[in-house]
C-alpha cells in the first residue's frame, strides 16, 4: 500500500514540479505553439502591411508599430490567437443563439447531423461486424466493399450523395448525416469485428460446453469482450462523423453549419471567420471524444474492468 507519508519530500527546484505531472508539459507545449503562432502571424501578415504603408506613402514605420498592425488586420493571412478569441467571443457570447451570425447556432446545425450520422454509423458498424463474424459468406462478400468504400475520397462522393438524395426529395439533415455515417461506420465495423473475435479460446470452449446458442455467446461473451474495442472505434468514428458533417455542408452551398461558415469565409476572404469555425470544430470534436471517453470509463468501471 502506498500512503501519503511515503511521498518523497518536495524538490527544491521549482520547475521539477511543473515538469513532472502532465499539466506542466501540456502548458509548456501550449505556450510554445502560441508563441510560434504569433511569430508566424507577424511574418505572414507583414507583406500586406508593407503594401498598405506604401500605398499610404508611409516610410520608416517603427518595428513595434508594424508588429501591432500585423496583429490587428481585418483580413489577415494568419490571424493572431487573440483576434480569433475575440471573434469567437463576439459570435458566441454576444450573439443570440438563434442569430444566423451566431457560431453556436452553426455549431448546433453541424452537431446534430454529426450525432445523427454517428448514431446510424455506429449501429450499422456493429450490425455489419456481427454479421461478418457469424457468416463466412457475409465476410467474403461484404469485406471488400467495406474496404473499397473507404478508398474513395469523401470529397468526391459527398456531392453525389447530397445531389442524389436531393433529387429523391431528401434534403436537410439526413444527407449530411449520411456522409457522417459513411465515414463513421468503417472504424466501428473494423473495431467490432476484431473485438467480437477477441475472446480467448478457453472462454469460447466454456460456452461450447454449455451448448450456448450463438445469440447467447454473442450477448454473454463476445459483446462484453468487444466493449473496449467499441469505445476506441467510436472515438475515431465520432471525429470522422464531424468531418463528414462539415464536408457535407460544403458542396451544396449550405447556408448554415460550420462547413458553411468555412465556405463563405473563404469566399469572402474572411480568415477570422474560417479560423473561428475551425477552432470551434476542433473544440467540438475534442468535447465529443472526451464525452465518449467519460462514458467508456463509467462503463468499464461498471463492468469491473478497471481496477
Amino acid at each position: 500500500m502506498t500512503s501519503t507519508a511515503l511521498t518523497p519530500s518536495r524538490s527544491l527546484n521549482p520547475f521539477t514540479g511543473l515538469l513532472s505531472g502532465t499539466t506542466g508539459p501540456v502548458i509548456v507545449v501550449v505556450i510554445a505553439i502560441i508563441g510560434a503562432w504569433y511569430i508566424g502571424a507577424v511574418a505572414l501578415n507583414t507583406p500586406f502591411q508593407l503594401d498598405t504603408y506604401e500605398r499610404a506613402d508611409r516610410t520608416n514605420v517603427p518595428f513595434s508599430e508594424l508588429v501591432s498592425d500585423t496583429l490587428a488586420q481585418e483580413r489577415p493571412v494568419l490571424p493572431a490567437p487573440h483576434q480569433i478569441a475575440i471573434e469567437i467571443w463576439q459570435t458566441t457570447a454576444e450573439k443570440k443563439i438563434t442569430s444566423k451570425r451566431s457560431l453556436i447556432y452553426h455549431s448546433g446545425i453541424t452537431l446534430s447531423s454529426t450525432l445523427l450520422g454517428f448514431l446510424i454509423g455506429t449501429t450499422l458498424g456493429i450490425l455489419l461486424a456481427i454479421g461478418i463474424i457469424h457468416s463466412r459468406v457475409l465476410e467474403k462478400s461484404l469485406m471488400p466493399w467495406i474496404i473499397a468504400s473507404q478508398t474513395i475520397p469523401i470529397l468526391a462522393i459527398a456531392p453525389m450523395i447530397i445531389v442524389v438524395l436531393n433529387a429523391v426529395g431528401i434534403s436537410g439533415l439526413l444527407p449530411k448525416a449520411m456522409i457522417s455515417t459513411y465515414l463513421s461506420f468503417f472504424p466501428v465495423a473494423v473495431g467490432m469485428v476484431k473485438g467480437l473475435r477477441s475472446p480467448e479460446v478457453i472462454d469460447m470452449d466454456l460456452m461450447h460446453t454449455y451448448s450456448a446458442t450463438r445469440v447467447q455467446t454473442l450477448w454473454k461473451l463476445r459483446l462484453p469482450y468487444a466493449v473496449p474495442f467499441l469505445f476506441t472505434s467510436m472515438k475515431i468514428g465520432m471525429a470522422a462523423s464531424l468531418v463528414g458533417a462539415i464536408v457535407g455542408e460544403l458542396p451544396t452551398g449550405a447556408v448554415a453549419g460550420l462547413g458553411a461558415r468555412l465556405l463563405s469565409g473563404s469566399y469572402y476572404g474572411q480568415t477570422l471567420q474560417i479560423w473561428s469555425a475551425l477552432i470551434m470544430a476542433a473544440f467540438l470534436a475534442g468535447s465529443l471524444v472526451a464525452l465518449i471517453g467519460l462514458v467508456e470509463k463509467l462503463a468499464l468501471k461498471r463492468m469491473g474492468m478497471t481496477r
Partner: protein
Amino acid sequence: MTALAGAKDTEMVDNHKSASPDRVIDIEKLSLTFETGDGPVHALSDIDLKIEQGDFVSFIGPSGCGKTTLLRVIADLEQPTAGSITVNGVSPEEARLNRAYGYVFQAAALYSWRTIAKNVALPLEIMGLSRSERQERIARNLELVNLTGFEKKYPWQLSGGMQQRASIARALAVEPDLLLMDEPFGALDEIVRDHLNEQLLQLWAKTSKTVAFVTHSIPEAVFLSTKIVVLCPRPGRIYDVIESDLPRERTLDIRESPEFLKIAHRVREGLKAGHSYED
C-alpha cells in the same frame, strides 16, 4: 474388478458396485492425432476405456501424455481421428447438447466482467433457470467451496486458488451427472486441497455423480478414485488401469492404511514406466 469389456448394451450384473451399472463413457480404439506445423502429434493412441455410472476415475500421467485431450474429447471439444466414443450411450455432441456434463478447465476461465456470483450464474442463465433457482444454486455452491461472502467480488480481486474454487462452484451449479475436472486443485495449497478433496468425495457419495478427474498427485488420485487410469506419453496411451478396492466412504486418514499405500505404489510404478519413455 468389473469385467465389462466388449459388452455395450443391455443390463449388466455388477456385483462390485451398488450403483446402477449404466455405462456413462464407452471409448473404443480411440486415437487423436494433431496435425501441426512440424508433423503429426499423436496425443491419444488406441484408447479403450469404460466408465460406469457413479465411478470416480482419475487420470494421471506425465505432462503431455494426453490427459487434457482425452477429457476434451469426452466433452466434444476435440474430435477423435479414429475409434469411437459414446457418452450416456450417445455421441459426445449429443451429450453436450443434453447438457450431460460440467467441465472444470485447467485454468479458472472466469469472465472478468462478471462478479463471482454472476460467473456461477452464467451456465444457469444459459440453461434458462429462474432467478430464484439461480440464486439458490449460487449460494449453495459458493458455500460448498468456501466462497460465501465473495459474491460481489470480481475475479481479479481473488487469489488464483479462490478463482479455481469459483470455477468449481460454477461447474457444480450445473448439477451434471458427469463432472469432468482437469487438474482442478493444482493451484491450491495442501490444506485447502485436502478440504476440497473431502468435499468432493462427500458430494460424489451423496449424489452418485460420475467424475473424470485429471491430477498430477498420486495421493489425490488414490484418495478420490474408484478407478485410476495411468497414461504414458508419445504416443499418449493407457499404461495401466487400477480398480481401487478402498471403501467408497473414506476419510483423509485412510491415506495411512496399507491398502492405500499399495495402490499408491502401483500408480507410482506406472508413472515411472511412463517417464522412462521420455528418454
